[in-house]
């Protein structure tokens, strides 16, 4: 059956961007990669379009990561923007906190194995266990266990970083 890519695009684009943000930590780049993923999809008729899209996106992000420098600066920029824009005092601390949280999560994710990161991001992007299994080539019955461990490791890494910050002030 022919894939209606326009429909798949409407249903999947945001999830794909969310997944790619976690891969490249740059919203604009993530959107660009998402677009590129769909461009490549136009030439194919996969049985599982969603799983196929995430597989391709993961590959594109992996290629990107090999050459790109992680743009941590944009999180710093968000902080600076909050200060520069002179936002309402009560709002500014919240924005700074969000930016700091994002940075911490990014660092925590970097401490995970690629598999742990992958399953977390795929699950966070709304993929089913079946799709995650197809994309990661893991057995469907193993996804629960892999996710359980990945979540625990994410929390451990995040809390470890928070402890570092508390001890060293940065």
């Amino acid at each position, binding site marked *: 059956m022919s894939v209606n*890519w*326009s429909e798949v*695009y*409407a249903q999947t*684009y*945001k999830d794909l*961007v*969310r997944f790619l*943000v*976690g891969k490249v930590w740059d*919203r604009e780049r993530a*959107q660009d990669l998402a*677009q*590129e993923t*769909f*461009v490549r999809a*136009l030439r194919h008729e996969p049985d599982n379009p969603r799983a196929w899209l995430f597989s391709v996106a993961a590959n594109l992000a992996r290629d990107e990561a090999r050459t790109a420098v992680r743009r941590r600066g944009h999180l710093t920029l968000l902080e600076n923007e909050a200060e520069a824009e002179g936002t309402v005092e009560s709002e500014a601390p919240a924005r700074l906190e*969000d930016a700091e*949280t*994002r940075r911490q*999560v*990014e660092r*925590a*994710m970097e401490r995970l194995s690629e598999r742990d990161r992958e399953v*977390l*991001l795929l*699950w*966070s*992007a709304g993929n*089913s*266990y*079946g799709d995650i299994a197809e994309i990661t080539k893991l057995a*469907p*019955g*193993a*996804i*629960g*266990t*892999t*996710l*359980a*461990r*990945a*979540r*625990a490791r*994410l*929390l451990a890494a*995040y809390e470890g970083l928070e402890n570092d910050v508390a001890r060293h002030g940065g």
Partner: protein
Amino acid sequence: MSHVTEGELHAYIDGVLGALDEAANERIVAHIEACDDCRGRLEAATEVRDRASTLLDASLSTPVEVPPFEDVLARAGLETDGTASADARPPRTRRLAWAASIAVALGAGWMANASLRDAGSSLAMGERADSDPPAPRAVAESNARERLELGDAPESTRIETAPTSPLGREESTQRLAARDEPRLEAERETGDALPRRAGESSAGFRSSVEPPPRNRPASGVVAAPPTAEPGASAALQKAAEDPNAVGLAPEELEELPWRRVEVIEAAEWVGGILTLPDVDVEEYALADHEGRRLARVRQRLPGGETFELVQLGGPPGLDASADEVLDDLREAPRRMLDRDALVRAGAVATRDRSGAYSMGWIDVGGVQVRASAAVAPDSLRALISRVRRP
């Protein structure tokens, strides 16, 4: 009684266990209801899942507007009905087309200009600026050393212009007139490694440029003979001895009876026409000067200047294939820009729309064509970035 595994717990929490294994789902539900330990572990697992979700939401949630699907189609070079767009062309195709253009243009130029010794041709640049004064007057005005960096070049390369000699143009030329050096001898003295024909070039695009000695001619420029008639145009004097030189000063070139033609006629006139690829051609023109055929091409550079090549027709010859021409082109050394030499060679400064004067010289050794591009640095950079294998 076997307890529930962590994986099963998380799958249960995620609400997918039933989809994976209905029987396992029923077993686990029943077990959790009966097992305090597993109920405690379920609570802990739920907390882990929720905290992880919160962290990921905090970092991944971002307002995203979904661009229209037409953007994807456009990016893929497709029309909205899925057919290929007329404008779509893969980048590699464009590069290959450009390469073909170089091969054709330079191959034809090669054919027209068989060898250095055969004195096929040389190129001289005329200046062009819409509201500029005559170029030779402008040449003597600047003493600044200009350093041009070619960011687009495959290697970092600098092209420098030497400070303008305090001597005026005529004086510099007369100094040359006192030196009775044949062209080949002059080249040996300057140490310029000009290949004579395709395949002999051994220089690559060097990361540094060899400066010619001050006040000595750039490669290929011959000193005027000592017997030059007083008052005679220095360029014409030079032409008397240097069969490679066009032998006309820029203002003299301007005064020739140029006739605007189509590219085919221009190519036939001189045996092949040289142009910069991917640069708009404003005009092809032909002129006949004392029995010698001249073809002029004017192209508009990105910086706004007009790049003008005057090509001298010569005996046809096929000494190199297009591939060899391209190989030589890639290996052609960059030359130091010597303002004095450019003045003597008939190259002149041009002033771009910002009012800045600059000069440039490109020696495409082995292709038997020397082009002095009197353009602004940015334009020269763009020009040189094109003079390479894609």
